[in-house]
């Protein structure tokens, strides 16, 4: 089951919300994420993601979103307001 989903995910990390605690980096089974030189989580090997959802569930700052790649690309509509823009919006 898990293999079917491998490489079909789109992972987004909001750098403004990430505090670089490293939970997602440490526990990711596919070693998809790494900490950047600025101390934020960054997506390095997106093709290895098996979409277990660990990073999304365990991010204390709600900074990671994992979506279906096909959905994101097929949906030509503008993406929902990201966390960053809504932050300034109101």
């Amino acid at each position, binding site marked *: 089951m898990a293999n079917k989903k491998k490489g079909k995910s789109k992972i987004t990390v909001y750098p403004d919300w990430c505090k670089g*605690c*490293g*939970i997602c980096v440490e526990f990711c089974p596919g070693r998809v994420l790494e900490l950047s030189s600025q101390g934020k989580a960054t997506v390095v090997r997106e093709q290895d993601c098996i979409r277990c*959802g660990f990073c*999304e*569930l*365990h991010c204390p*700052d*709600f900074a990671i979103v994992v979506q279906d790649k096909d959905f994101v690309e097929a949906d030509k509509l503008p993406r929902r307001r990201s966390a960053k823009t809504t*932050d300034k919006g109101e």
Partner: protein
Amino acid sequence: MNEITGNEIIHQYLRHNKKFPHVLCAGCGHGIVLGTLIRAIHTLAIPKDDVVIVAGIGCSGRLAVYVDFNTVHTTHGRALTFATGIKMANPKLNVICIMGDGDALSIGGNHLIHAARRNIGVTALILNNNIYGMTGGQSSPATPEGSTTMTNPYGQLDASFDTVALARGAGANYVARGTVFHVKRLEKIMVEAISRPGFSVVEAITPCHTQYGRKNRYKTPVDMYKWLKKAAVPIDRYEEMTEEQRTDRLPIGVFVAEDRSGFEERYLSLQAQMRAKGGK
């Protein structure tokens, strides 16, 4: 169409005019508990207006600020008393009381046992991080024996409270414990706790690296999550263990699950009875 999943659900429940990222430290488990609570409420499909979050003082008190429900930020230790009042005034509301270990076990310890005895229909979510985090790392009633804190540089001498045993002894209707590492299990527990009648106690073990972990052999926040992964054992497996294996292990799961009717239900039925008799 693009269905909304995971953290995008949570983003819909946050108050985006509050400053994000939230005030909690990097690697603090409180954020995970908040996310789990939001997901549980989303699963139950309760409208935002029917949920009341009552929070006390401390790091856990900040959680009420960030979510778009009816929220009350109350005085230290008295969150359960406010919650009792709200539930009695409008029994239709789902009242969830977020407290820390200091809030629930020391300053509000009296309220916790009497709320359990009364069986008021409130869900008490106790975020146990073993320490008074916000005020600078003093020992709390949940600090494990022998661990080092700001006020106990040579190790804590007192034994710590077992929240589950305390709540069970006081007669709570539903008692469960989860950790922030076992998120899916914690979510299930929360869903059950919110949907049951009567008083529910959910203890969520959440690591505090800044005030507790750094002084107790955990070098990074990740080490604390590894400890949770290792220490937490499901209750059925814990019961099969020998006394030796049980050292440093933490049973998680559902300890008490009853369906006794809450205080507000008994009060309303008494009221209806007296009215039928012709009272005023």
